[in-house]
C-alpha cells in the first residue's frame, strides 16, 4: 500500500538532502582552500603566480591588459586581488580597505628587517612607462555574498545538483505519468467502443496506487462489457425466441383465412399487418444483433456504390411521392468499394427512408455523393432533409437503438428507432463513420464517410 506515496516522498527528500550536502561540501572545500591561502608560503606562491600573470597581461596589451586581467581575477577568484598604484588607488576603482593600504605603505618604505624580508618579494607589475602596480590580496572583502556570486565556486556543485535533480525528477515524472497516460488511452479507446481494452497486463509487475487504479479500471471495464454483452445477448435471445410464436401466429392466421373462405373478416387483414410489423421488427433486431457481433463485413466483394445509391433512391421515390416529397440526387461520382452490398444497401436505405419520413410534406430530400477531401479514395454521401431536425443533445444518440427524438411523432410514423442504428453499424463495419448535424436553415443532414 502507498508505494507511490513513499516513492514520491523519499525521492524528493533524498534529492533535497543530497543537494544540501553537495552545497555544504563545496563551500567547505572552498573555505579550506582560502584557509590554505592565508598560509604565508602558499599565499606568496599564489601571489607570485598572479604577478607573473599580470606582467604577462601587460606585455600583451599594456594597461588595458592589466585591467582586463584584474577584472577576470575578480570574477573568478574567491579572494579579490587589488591592483594598487603608488597613491593607494585601485586600478578598477574598488574600495581599498585600510589594512591593504597599510601593507602597501610597508612595502614602499620597509623599516624592520623582517619587513625587509617580506619586501624582498615585490608583488609589483611594471608598465612600459615605468609606473608600478602593487598586487595585494584583500581578505576583508571575502564575504558570503561574494562567495555565492563567484560562478567558479558555485558552478560545479550547482551543476551537479541541477543535473541529479533533473534526472531524478525526470525519472519520477515519467514513472508517474507513463501508466497514467496508458490508462487515459485505454479509457478513451473504451469510450470509443473498444470494450476489450485492459490496462493491468501492460503495467507488468509494478505494484502501486496507479496499478490499483488500473486494476479498478479493468474490473469496471470487465463488468461493463459483461453487462453490455448480456444486454445484447438478451436482445438477440428474445428476438430468436419470438420467432417461434410468430411462426405459429402466421400459420394460425393462414388457417383462419382458409376457414373464412371467400369473405374474410377485416380483422384478419389487421392481424396480418401487425404480424408483418412484428416480423419486420424482429428482422431488424436480428440484423442489428448480427452487426454488433461481427467485426468485419461478411463476404466482401466489389460494390458499385454509385449504382447502389441510385437503386435506393428509386426504391424510396414511391414512399416520397406518397408524402408529396421529392428525392433529389444532386451529385454522384463513380465509386467501387470493397464491401458487402447487402449491408451497404441497408445502411443507405435506412438513412434515406429516415429522411423521407421526417422531411416536411412537400419538400425535397437532397442526396449527394462526393469524394472525401480528407481521405484519398474515400467517399462522402450526404442525405439532407427539410424536417424539424434533431435537438443538439440528441445528435450523437441518434444512432443508438430504440432512441426516439420526439416520442409522439415517431410512434405516428411507425418507426422502431432501429434503422439508423443498423446503418451506423453497417457503415462502421466497413471502416467508415456516420454523423448527423442540423442545417442552419433547418433540417437534418446525415453524412456517411466510407474509406476506399
Amino acid at each position, binding site marked *: 500500500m502507498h508505494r507511490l506515496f513513499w516513492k514520491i516522498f523519499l525521492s524528493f527528500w533524498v534529492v533535497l538532502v543530497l543537494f544540501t550536502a553537495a552545497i555544504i561540501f563545496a563551500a567547505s572545500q572552498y573555505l579550506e582552500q582560502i584557509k590554505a591561502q592565508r598560509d604565508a608560503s602558499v599565499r606568496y606562491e599564489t601571489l607570485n603566480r598572479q604577478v607573473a600573470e599580470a606582467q604577462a597581461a601587460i606585455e600583451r596589451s599594456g594597461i588595458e591588459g592589466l585591467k582586463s586581467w584584474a577584472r577576470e581575477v575578480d570574477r573568478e577568484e574567491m579572494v579579490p586581488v587589488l591592483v594598487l598604484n603608488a597613491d593607494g588607488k585601485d586600478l578598477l576603482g574598488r574600495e581599498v580597505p585600510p589594512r591593504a593600504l597599510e601593507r602597501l605603505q610597508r612595502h614602499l618604505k620597509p623599516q624592520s628587517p623582517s619587513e625587509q624580508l617580506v619586501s624582498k618579494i615585490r608583488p609589483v607589475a611594471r608598465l612600459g612607462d615605468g609606473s608600478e602596480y602593487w598586487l595585494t590580496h584583500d581578505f576583508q572583502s571575502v564575504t558570503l555574498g561574494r562567495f555565492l556570486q563567484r560562478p567558479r565556486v558555485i558552478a560545479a556543485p550547482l551543476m551537479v545538483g541541477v543535473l541529479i535533480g533533473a534526472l531524478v525528477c525526470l525519472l519520477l515524472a515519467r514513472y508517474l505519468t507513463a501508466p497514467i497516460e496508458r490508462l487515459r488511452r485505454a479509457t478513451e479507446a473504451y469510450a470509443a467502443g473498444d470494450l476489450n481494452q485492459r490496462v493491468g497486463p501492460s503495467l507488468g509487475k509494478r505494484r502501486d496506487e496507479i496499478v490499483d487504479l488500473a486494476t479498478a479500471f479493468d474490473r469496471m471495464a470487465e463488468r461493463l462489457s459483461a453487462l453490455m454483452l448480456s444486454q445484447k445477448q438478451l436482445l438477440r435471445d428474445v*428476438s*430468436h425466441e419470438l*420467432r*417461434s410464436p*410468430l*411462426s*405459429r*401466429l*402466421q*400459420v*394460425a392466421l*393462414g*388457417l383462419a383465412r*382458409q376457414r373464412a373462405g371467400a369473405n374474410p373478416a377485416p380483422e384478419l387483414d389487421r392481424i396480418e399487418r401487425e404480424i408483418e410489423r412484428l*416480423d419486420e421488427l*424482429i*428482422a431488424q433486431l*436480428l*440484423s442489428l*444483433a*448480427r452487426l454488433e457481433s461481427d467485426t468485419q463485413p*461478411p463476404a466482401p466483394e*466489389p460494390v*458499385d456504390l454509385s449504382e447502389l445509391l441510385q437503386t435506393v433512391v428509386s426504391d424510396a421515390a414511391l414512399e416520397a411521392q406518397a408524402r408529396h416529397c421529392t428525392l433529389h440526387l444532386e451529385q454522384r461520382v463513380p465509386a467501387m468499394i470493397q464491401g458487402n*452490398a*447487402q449491408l451497404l*444497401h441497408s445502411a443507405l436505405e435506412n438513412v434515406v427512408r429516415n429522411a423521407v419520413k421526417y422531411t416536411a410534406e412537400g419538400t425535397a430530400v437532397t442526396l449527394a455523393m462526393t469524394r472525401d477531401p480528407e481521405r484519398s479514395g474515400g467517399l462522402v454521401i450526404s442525405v439532407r432533409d427539410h424536417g424539424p431536425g434533431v435537438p443538439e443533445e440528441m445528435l450523437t444518440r441518434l444512432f443508438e437503438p430504440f432512441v426516439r427524438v420526439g416520442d409522439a411523432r415517431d410512434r405516428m410514423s411507425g418507426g422502431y428507432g432501429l434503422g439508423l442504428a443498423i446503418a451506423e453499424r453497417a457503415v462502421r463495419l466497413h471502416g467508415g463513420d456516420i454523423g448527423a448535424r442540423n442545417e442552419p436553415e433547418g433540417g437534418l443532414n446525415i453524412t456517411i464517410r466510407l474509406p476506399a
Partner: protein
Amino acid sequence: MPHILLADDDIELCEMLKEYLAAEGFTLATAHDGETALLKAQAGAFDLIILDVMMPRKNGFDVLREVRAHTATPVLMLTARGEDVDSIVGLELGADDYLAKPCNPRVLVARIRALLRRAETHLSGRSGSKAAEALLFGDLQIHTGTRTVVCRGKTIAMTSTEYCVLEALLRDAGRVVSKANLSERALDRKLAPYDRSLDMHVSNLRKKLGPRPDGQDRIVTVRGIGYQYVVV
C-alpha cells in the same frame, strides 16, 4: 396427392401446418427431431422434404447431407431469420431452395408448388410442351426427355433444381443469361435482391461438372449481370 415430410421440432407448428397444407391439397408427415426425420425420409417415398435447420439430435444440415447421399428428392430448408449463412450452407449441401422462418404460409405453399412442379417434370420425363431432345455441348450431353446429364461419359446425379438451372443455361449457351431471367425460368420465382440461391446452385453445378477439357470454367459469372455457359 403430393406427400410431404416436414421436419421441425415445433410440434404445434407442425400440427397447424398439417391442417393448413391439407386444405391446400398436400398430405403431410411430420418428424420432430433429426434422427426421426432421417429414418422417415429413408423409409417413405416423399415428393418433397421440408427441413428445419434447428432440430434436436441431428440438425437439418446433417439430415440433408445423408438424404442427398441416397436420393434427389427436392428439399426445402427452413432457415432461421437472421442466420443468412444457413441458407448458403443448405444450398451448398444440395437443398433445392430455402425459406427464412418465420414465413408466411402462403409463401411456403408457393415454394412447395414451384419445387414440386420442377420435380414432377423431372421424374415423369415430361418437359412441358417441348419435345424430348438431346442437347450436346462438347463433352456434355443432356437429355431433356429423361432429364439426365452425362458429362465425360458419366451420368451426373443432380437435383431437379440444378438440372433446371443447367438446362436454362444450355438453351442459351454462348449467351449471357441474366439472373432475373434464370430465376424465373429455373426457380419459378422473381429474383429477390441479395438472394444467393442461384449463385449456390451454379457453384454446385460447377463442382459436379468439373472444368472443360481445356481446363477453363464451363460456366462463367458475368459480374452484375448473370451467367454464361461458354461454348468453344
